[in-house]
């Protein structure tokens, strides 16, 4: 038999996680993934002793431009 209380708790946890995701990541998850990958690449390059400071500026500019371009191609019907 399943515990209805446990199901309700799970739903609340899922709602909380969804709200946290929406709050931090918002409507462009590709940018968030890109930032995480760029930080990982920076860590790898720095670990092998090669200067790695240039990776983040390049990645951020590229991610922002792509994100804006995606939105410009397909603007939302309302404000959001």
């Amino acid at each position, binding site marked *: 038999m399943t515990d209805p209380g446990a199901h309700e708790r799970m739903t609340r946890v899922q709602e909380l996680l969804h709200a946290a995701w929406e*709050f*931090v990541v918002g409507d462009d998850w590709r940018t968030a993934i890109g930032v*995480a990958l760029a*930080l990982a690449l920076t860590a790898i390059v720095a670990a092998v002793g090669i200067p790695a400071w240039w990776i983040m*500026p390049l990645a951020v500019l590229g991610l*922002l*431009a792509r994100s804006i*371009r995606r939105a*410009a191609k397909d603007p939302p019907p309302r404000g959001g």
Partner: protein
Amino acid sequence: MSGAELGLALSVFLACAVEAVEALTIVLAVGSTRSWSSAMSGVGAAVLALAALVVALGPALTALPIDLLRVLVGGLLLIFGLQWLRKAILRSAGLKAKHDETRTFMEETQAARAAAGKDSSFDGYAFTIAFKGVLLEGLEVAFIVLTFGANQHRVALAAAAAGLAVLVVVAAGAAARAPLARVPENTLKLTVGVMLSSFGMFWGAEGAGASWPGGDGALLAIVPGMLVAAFALIRTQGPTRPQRVKLQTTSTDPAP
């Protein structure tokens, strides 16, 4: 005060001012149409909840190892900052409808009048709407206060900058007795987006093991660089005429 601390204070002040303008619009609408005392009780309860969040999480964050803190907080701040910057660029380029505080005020006022009448001295509707408005707008500020403050072990300075911004906006709202529709909200959001993204990028890369040329001085190149990139995107990504016409007929959306 160092350049990084000044950047911290300025970023938190501007972000908090933007959110405070939006929260003020909601509180003014329910306060003037329903009950000032209940609306102000809602504001007080939300401010207490936000303060408790900062006090509880601030010391926990500052206890983390500095490199882990920087890569974690820098990454989150960068993702969060790019959200602000993206929306501000889209609005400036005419690809997204701008926030309209006067319209929000009218909508909130109509909703407050339409809600069921008060049956006691305490107005639950005014309390709840004011509480939710301040809490939701304030969460973004609490996030910025915590991430900026913890990274430089200056949570108190970040909280003071946030408090000052609230005082300035509330004083302006009290003087105007109307929503602050003339505040250049999108320009402020663009500025905050640039600051959050720049500091997030700087701290994230440092935490990941990179060394910036010139140390903290690199921020003097990163911040203007992000600003130039933002303006370049606004200029190059403007909408076609049909898109612009369509946007002029749309409504606004919540922050950021």
